[in-house]
């Protein structure tokens, strides 16, 4: 009888890369629901379109690379990239924006570097940055106004017509985001004046705060499942909040903390984007530093940059720094007096 031989361990935990990806996708759903509730069907449509594009692009490249398509597609990483992109893109962005962003993400940012695990940059954010730089108008003017401000909830047909550019969207359907508005008016106006505008609602930012809360909930779920490390989101939120507290004590002068945290893609970025394990730092301490950097850059770009939101750029910038952070944040090994850090650490 021939016995089979293997190296230990002979048992493993019931968690796979596919299941991790599946969980991330599933926990996007609360945020997606909030987005749909407040901003219409656009995001849902984008998620669908980006996902299909991403999966098809991945399959095509795998076929070209002569890899086993089924095996690699079943890790759901392409699908996740598509979903994240769909959530991040403006709800009413024309269809080709979604297609370009998703295919660029998968083909150039992921597969050309060798596929899952080898990409130095966050694919979804690289795709997002590409379309943001290439088509600034389409990317800034297609944010939907909160649906509660409109006469009636826009129908599926209306959304589709707008995205597929069949006919012009009805007036008042799209508008600037609160971050954008605040940023442009803060120098000339007062906090009261700005927040009395409709899109800020009665609370902080109409609609957006609930979207962020929903993503926060999903993120907490990821934390509870130990799918993402706590260091990264904690770093992001701290990196954003600290300068916001420092510089925004007077809401007449700068965007206040509450809006920083609850407007834009803050929670989505902190829990779903910055935590992409492949392109972020890998050491526990490094992850916190990585998050801190993302938060800090987000604040800087939001405040002094020309783009209204900044998660994508902040994440990409920190992606550059991740390998270096790793080198300098090696943990101390059991039985060693101190950690070996830096490029010149000798054995």
């Amino acid at each position, binding site marked *: 009888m*021939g*016995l089979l031989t293997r*190296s230990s361990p002979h048992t493993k935990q019931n968690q796979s890369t596919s299941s991790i990806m599946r969980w991330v996708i599933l926990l996007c759903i609360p945020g997606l629901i909030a987005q749909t509730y407040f901003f219409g069907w656009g995001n849902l449509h984008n998620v669908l379109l980006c996902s299909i594009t991403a999966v098809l692009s991945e399959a095509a490249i795998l076929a070209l690379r002569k890899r086993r398509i089924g095996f690699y597609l079943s890790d759901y990483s392409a699908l996740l990239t598509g979903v994240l992109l769909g959530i991040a893109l403006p709800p009413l962005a024309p269809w080709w924006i979604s297609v370009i962003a998703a295919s660029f993400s998968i083909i150039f940012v992921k597969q050309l570097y060798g*596929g899952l*695990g080898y990409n130095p940059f966050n694919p979804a954010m690289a795709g997002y940055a590409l379309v943001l730089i290439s088509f600034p108008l389409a990317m800034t003017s297609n944010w939907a106004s909160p649906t509660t401000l409109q006469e009636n909830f826009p129908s599926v047909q209306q959304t589709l017509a707008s995205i597929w550019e069949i006919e012009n969207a009805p007036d008042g359907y799209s508008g600037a985001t609160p971050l954008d508005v605040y940023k442009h008016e803060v120098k000339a106006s007062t906090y009261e004046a700005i927040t009395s505008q409709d899109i800020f609602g009665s609370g902080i930012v109409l609609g957006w705060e609930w979207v962020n809360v929903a993503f926060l909930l999903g993120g907490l779920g990821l934390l509870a499942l130990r799918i993402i490390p706590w260091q990264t989101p904690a770093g992001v939120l701290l990196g954003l909040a600290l300068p916001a507290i420092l510089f925004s004590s007077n809401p007449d002068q700068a965007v206040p903390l509450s809006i920083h945290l609850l407007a834009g893609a803050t929670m989505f970025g902190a829990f779903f984007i910055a935590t992409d394990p492949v392109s*972020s730092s890998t050491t526990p301490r490094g992850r916190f530093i990585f998050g801190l950097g993302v938060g800090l850059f987000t604040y800087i770009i939001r405040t002094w940059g020309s783009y209204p939101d900044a998660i994508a750029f902040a994440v990409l910038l920190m992606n550059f720094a991740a390998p270096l952070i790793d080198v300098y944040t090696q943990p101390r090994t059991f039985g060693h007096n101190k950690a070996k850090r830096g490029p010149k650490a000798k054995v």
Partner: protein
Amino acid sequence: MAKLRIAHNNSRTLHDFHGGIHPEENKTQSTQLDIQKASLPSTLIVPLQQHVGKSAKVLVNAGDRVLKGQLIADADGVISACVHAPSSGVVREISDQAIAHPSGLSAPCVVIDTDGEDQWCELEAHEDYLNLEREKVLKCIRRAGVAGMGGAGFPSEVKLHPANQKKLKTLVINGVECEPYITSDDMLMRTYADEMLRGIEIMARLLEPQHIVLAIEDNKAEAYTAIQEALAEHQGHTSASQYTIELAVIPTKYPSGGEKQLIYILTGEEVPSGGIPADIGVVCQNVATARAVYRAVRYGEPLISRITTLTGDQFKKSCNVESLIGTPMSHLLQEFQFQDSRDARLIIGGPMMGYTIEQLDTPVVKTTNCILAPSAKELPFEDQAQACIRCGLCTEACPAELLPQQLYWFSRSAEYEKAEQHNLFDCIECGACAYVCPSSIPLVQHYRHAKGEIKAKRLDTDKSEKARIRFEARQERLEREAQEKEAKRKARAEAAAKLQAEKKAAAANAESVDPKKAAIEAALARKNASKAETVSAQVSVEELQGNLDKAQSKLDKMIDALEDAKANAPDNVAKLQRAVEKNQLRVNQAKQALEKAQTVSAPTPQAVPEVSLETLQSNVDKAQAKLDKMIDTLEDAKANAPENVEKFQRAVDKNKARVEQAKQALNDAQAASSENKPEPKTETVPVEVLEANLEKAQAKLDKMIDTLEDAKANAPENIEKFQRAVDKNKVRVKAAQDALAQAKSQEVEN
């Protein structure tokens, strides 16, 4: 089944180590039955090396009858353990057998056919074992071959020497058994708690630690109770017991039974990287080892059996068995109803760190704590590895606080230096990283491979360093010898030159030769230079000629040797005959090559005659020398071995003919070349040759004299022979000197 957990009521503060995992325990299956006794197998296969360190030296031979407990292999060196016959019987053979090792390779084993009598040899029991001297106790443990029964099987006695002066702080007794499935220590503590405690007492007496801590995981409630009962009883009736054994219950977590992890849990101190527990004043021993120590000291019983867990769904009934060391696993499998299947695995050890074996008759050894035969459903084969997404779950699980994924990337891309920098060698291969890896990457195997490669490389480097040192030492020595020789030669040459100068002064005192001589010498130098050039052009022919000469001389030597052998050592004749034939072949080949080359290079003018002339000259010399030797030998033979005379005579004749031939050829060539060449050349060539000859002869003579002196000192029986050789050489030197002088004077006249 409900799990029993003991309440943590330690007096000791426990420390939690980083990482760790909580795999399914799967321990209850094998604790339902008491410890079973395995039947006596018909064959026992006892490996000589069952532990880290050196293999034991075998003391028995095939066919010997051995008794149960008899020493069959002795420890070799400090880190080595004695091996005993587990039952009485006859040694069938000592041969390589498959052993329990992940490589599936074989190693030397003593194979014993048991006789079924199970007859013990005489054992040295010690009733009063607590009052034995320390040395005696240690000797008992060593003679009994007790080795760590938990993990690597480190010879226990070594760890029981209070080796360094540092006071030992803590003796840790490891009853944690954190690996899933394994219950052999658990069952041992339940069944033999008393013996184990007595073993601990013996070890405590040897080590005199400040604290003795017996650590046990909180999932072993029954063992805990058993120990407490035994402790109460023990402390009740043993008057000598001045040691307090602290029972520490630690939370169940893998790998808290790892030596370094356990010490950290109990003391909060880390064993330094690359160090041993003794460095921080701790010694760690396994509970089964403690019992073995007791049996060894109290009853003189060697370690010839152990408790092994048989578990996994492929066993009809999981249980623990007490089986003899050397029992083939196939015997146990059969007895305890192992169900074979197509995808069956046998894991030695637990699912986390155990290894699979390929052959069923692999023997049980001192470290075999578990034989796990899982079904594919129970422990599924790992999925195909997906890409590493750097999720960091491994980092969180690693008890050594390493960065497993970094190590993985470095190991995979063979960047071993970086892997070492990331402390690859602090990895304890516990498997926690691979257990949590969502991409099912066989991380541990990557590390093991990398470690192996690095170790092999280190060995290589060490070896090449050693070779370099030896090479350099040899070079130095050769140089020194050459220098010494040169110095000696110079001294002699000076003496000779002085002698000659005196002679010359007497012979040609009238003429003032100096200016002319200088001119001649200049011409000579020029000539030499030009010759060197032409010669170098002729390299290949010369080389071939050299080859041929070499081959020829080797052949000649061979033939000589053969003849010698025929005379003196008939048993070598055949060997030499073969060698001669081989060499003959080589000579022929060389000849052919030379001829070819010569025909090719023949058109080159001038150089050919010159070269051949010299060569011929040397041929003549060589032939002459050989002839001389032959004649010597012949004379020898005449004196000592009359039966060979005829043979030698023939050889001498042959050589004479050869010399004649060579001389003839030389003359021809000389004649031809004198026609070809302008005058001065014909004159100078002989002088040069003669000078060279003189030098050569002188050197040879020197050597001879050396040898002679040597011989005088060491080998008086050879003196005569050497003396003769020296004389002959002296004559030759003289002849050469004369010839040279003659030539020179001729030159002067010209």
